[in-house]
C-alpha cells in the first residue's frame, strides 16, 4: 500500500482504523489515544515524506506510525507492551519510535516534541541531503510557548522543518475557541515569515496536496512551513477520558469520515469498484489479524528491564 496514490491512501486509512478497532477489543489495550477520524492527516502527510525524512508526533501516534510504514505487528506489540515492539514495549503509544524507519516518533508531552523536532531538523540540515523533519501536533500545543520559541529559531535558521497541526478542535474537553485566540492556527506562523496554510483535514487528497507543496518548499531550502489540518476525532480524547460532545455533534462529525469520503469519491469517479473495496477490506482484515497474532506471540518484558538503558 502506498499512500501516494488514492487507493493506497484509502487502504492506509482503512488499515489504521481497523487496527485501532482490533486494539480496543483487547482487555489489555490499556490507555490509548486513538487516531480514529484523523487518519487523513497522518496518511496525507506521510505521503509527502521521503524515506530519509523523520516524522515526529504527539502521543496520538497510531495512525502516524502506521502511515509512516512501520511494521504493523511491531506497532501492535509496542501498543500492548510486548517485548517485540521497536521500543521493546517500554514506550507504548505515547513514545512509539523507530528512527531507522523514519519515525523519530511520539512524545506524549503536549508541545514537547516541537523543539526536539527542530533539533532533528538542525541535524538533518547539516547532512545537506535534502531530508526534512516533520512534526505532527494537536491544537492543544498551539497554546504553549514552545511553539513560539521553535518557530522563531526555525525561521531564523531556515531549518528544514514542517510543522503540522492536526487541529481536532478540542483539548480533551476544552473547545479550541475557548483556548486559542488566533482566527486560524496557521496565523500563528505568519509573523515569523513561515509559509503556512489551513486545509480540510478530513480530505486526504487535500492534505496530501498541501503537504507535498509545503515539503517541497522546506526541502528546497525555503525554511520551515506550517500546515494546519482541521479534523475531527471520533472517539473521546483517550480511552480513559469522558466524552463531552453531544450525539448530534458526533453524528455530524461522522458524516465527514475521511475513509467514506474518499471511498465514495473514488467510486463516483470510477477509479474504484465495489469489488476492489471489498478486496481492500479483506486485505486489511488479514493484515490486522496477522499483526495481532504477531504481537500476541511476543512476551511481556522481564522485570529487570525496568533498569535497562537508563541515560
Amino acid at each position, binding site marked *: 500500500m502506498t499512500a501516494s496514490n488514492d487507493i493506497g491512501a484509502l487502504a492506509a486509512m482503512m488499515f489504521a482504523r481497523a487496527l485501532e478497532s482490533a486494539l480496543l477489543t483487547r482487555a489489555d489495550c490499556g490507555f490509548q489515544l486513538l487516531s480514529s477520524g484523523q487518519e487523513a492527516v497522518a496518511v496525507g502527510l506521510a505521503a509527502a515524506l521521503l524515506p530519509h525524512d*523523520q516524522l515526529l508526533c504527539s502521543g496520538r501516534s497510531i495512525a502516524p506510525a502506521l502511515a509512516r510504514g512501520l511494521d504493523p505487528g511491531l506497532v501492535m506489540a509496542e501498543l500492548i507492551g510486548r517485548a517485540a*515492539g*521497536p*521500543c*521493546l*514495549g*517500554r*514506550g507504548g503509544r505515547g*513514545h512509539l*519510535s*523507530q*528512527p*531507522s524507519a523514519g519515525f*523519530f*516518533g511520539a*512524545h506524549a*508531552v503536549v508541545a*514537547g516534541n*516541537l*523543539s*526536539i*523536532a*527542530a*533539533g*532533528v*531538523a*538542525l*541535524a*538533518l540540515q*547539516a*547532512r545537506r541531503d535534502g531530508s526534512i*523533519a516533520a512534526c505532527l501536533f494537536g491544537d492543544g500545543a498551539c497554546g504553549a*510557548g*514552545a511553539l513560539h*520559541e*521553535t518557530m*522563531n*529559531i526555525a525561521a*531564523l*535558521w531556515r531549518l528544514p522543518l514542517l510543522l503540522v497541526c492536526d487541529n481536532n478542535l478540542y483539548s480533551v474537553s476544552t473547545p479550541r475557541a475557548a483556548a486559542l485566540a488566533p482566527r486560524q492556527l496557521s496565523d500563528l506562523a505568519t509573523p515569523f515569515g513561515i509559509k503556512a496554510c489551513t486545509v480540510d483535514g478530513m480530505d486526504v487528497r487535500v492534505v496530501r496536496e498541501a503537504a507535498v507543496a509545503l515539503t517541497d518548499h522546506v526541502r528546497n531550502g525555503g525554511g520551515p512551513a506550517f500546515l494546519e489540518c482541521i479534523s475531527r476525532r471520533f472517539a473521546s480524547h483517550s480511552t480513559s477520558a469522558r466524552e463531552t460532545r453531544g450525539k448530534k455533534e458526533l453524528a455530524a462529525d461522522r458524516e465527514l469520515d475521511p475513509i467514506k469520503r474518499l471511498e465514495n469519491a473514488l467510486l463516483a469517479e470510477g477509479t474504484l469498484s465495489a469489488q476492489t473495496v471489498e478486496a481492500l477490506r479483506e486485505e486489511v482484515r488479514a493484515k490486522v489479524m496477522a499483526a495481532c497474532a504477531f504481537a500476541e506471540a511476543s512476551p511481556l518484558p522481564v522485570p529487570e528491564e525496568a533498569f*535497562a*538503558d*537508563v*541515560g
Partner: protein
Amino acid sequence: MSAEPVRMRRVFFREAICRAVRETLDADPNAIVMGQDVGAFGGSYREFSGLFERFGPARVRDTPVAEAAMVGLGIGAAAAGLRPLVSITYMDFVLLALDPLVNYAAKARFKTGGQIRVPLVVKLTAGAKGQGVAHSQSFESWLMSVPGLRVVAPSNVANAYGLMRSALQADGPVVYVDHKRLFPTSGPLDDSAPEVPFGMATVSRPGRHATVIAHSYMVSVALAASGVLAATGIDCEVIDLRSLAPLDLATVCTSVSKTGALLTLEEGQVACGIGAEIACQVQARLGPVRVSRLGAVPAPVSSNSVLEAASLPDAARVAEAVRRLLRTPEIPPPHRG
C-alpha cells in the same frame, strides 16, 4: 631521542573549559556549541573565547533568549547525530528547560529501547556572586535525582578541563555545572592533561579527624576552613566529589571509615540536598557515624552583599560546623565478628 617535555601552563578556569570544547570541536565535526552570547561575544564568562572565529556561526551558534527551545533543539540535534553543548549562563534558568531535559533527554534511551541516545552537554553556571534571588541558585541536587542524567561539577582548572572532555564524549545527557566564583581562578594545566572520568571523587586534602565532602566552589571553602582548623590541631580530610551522578560513595566511605565524622557541604539547600543523600548512603554502608550537613540557609539569596554572605556557607561556618561535629560523642564502630 629525548621525550618532549610536558608543558605546564597556568590558565584561568574559563580557558580550561574553552580548551576542552575547542579540542572536541577540532576532533569531532558533529560537535557544536549553542547558547546565548556564545558567538562573537565569546560567552558570558569568555569561556568560549575564539571558538566562533575558529569554527564559524554554523558550529558556534548564538540563540535567542529561549532556554526551553535551546535545550530542546540540542536534544533533538544530539538524538539525530550531532554532539551539541548547550550553554545556559545562569543555572536558575535551566528551570525553563526542565521539560525537554527531564522528560525527553533523560528518558530517550530507555523509552525507545536503546534506539535513541542523547549525547548532549548542558553547561550551567551556578552559585551566588551578588546577582540576587533568581541568578544565584545551586540546584544540582534536583538534577542528580533524575534517572538518566549525569551531573558533574568541577572545582578547579584541571577538573574543569577533564570533566568537560569526558562530558563531550559521553553517550548520554550530561549536566556540567560550573560556578561564577571559579571563573576568576587559575591553576596549572599541562598539555597532556587527562580526562576526568565520571563517578570518581578525589581527596583534595588528606586528614585524620573529620571528612568534609564538597563540590565546585565549596571545595575551596572547605580547604580554607581546613587551614583554619589545622592551626588548632584539627586535621580535616576534604573530598571533592567532582561527579554528583554517578556518586563515588567508595571514596567517601573510605575516608569516613578512617575519620568517623562526616560534614557535608554544599552551596544549595540542605533539605533534600546532596548531603542528605550522601549521609544516608554512607550510613547504610558503614552504620552510624557522626554526620552534620551544611548548606545555604532556607531563604532566597539576596544581591545585597550583607544578606548574601549571611545566607551561604563560608570558611568560618565550615570550621565551626566541624568543631561542633567533633564535640558530639564519638560513635564506636559496629562490632564485627
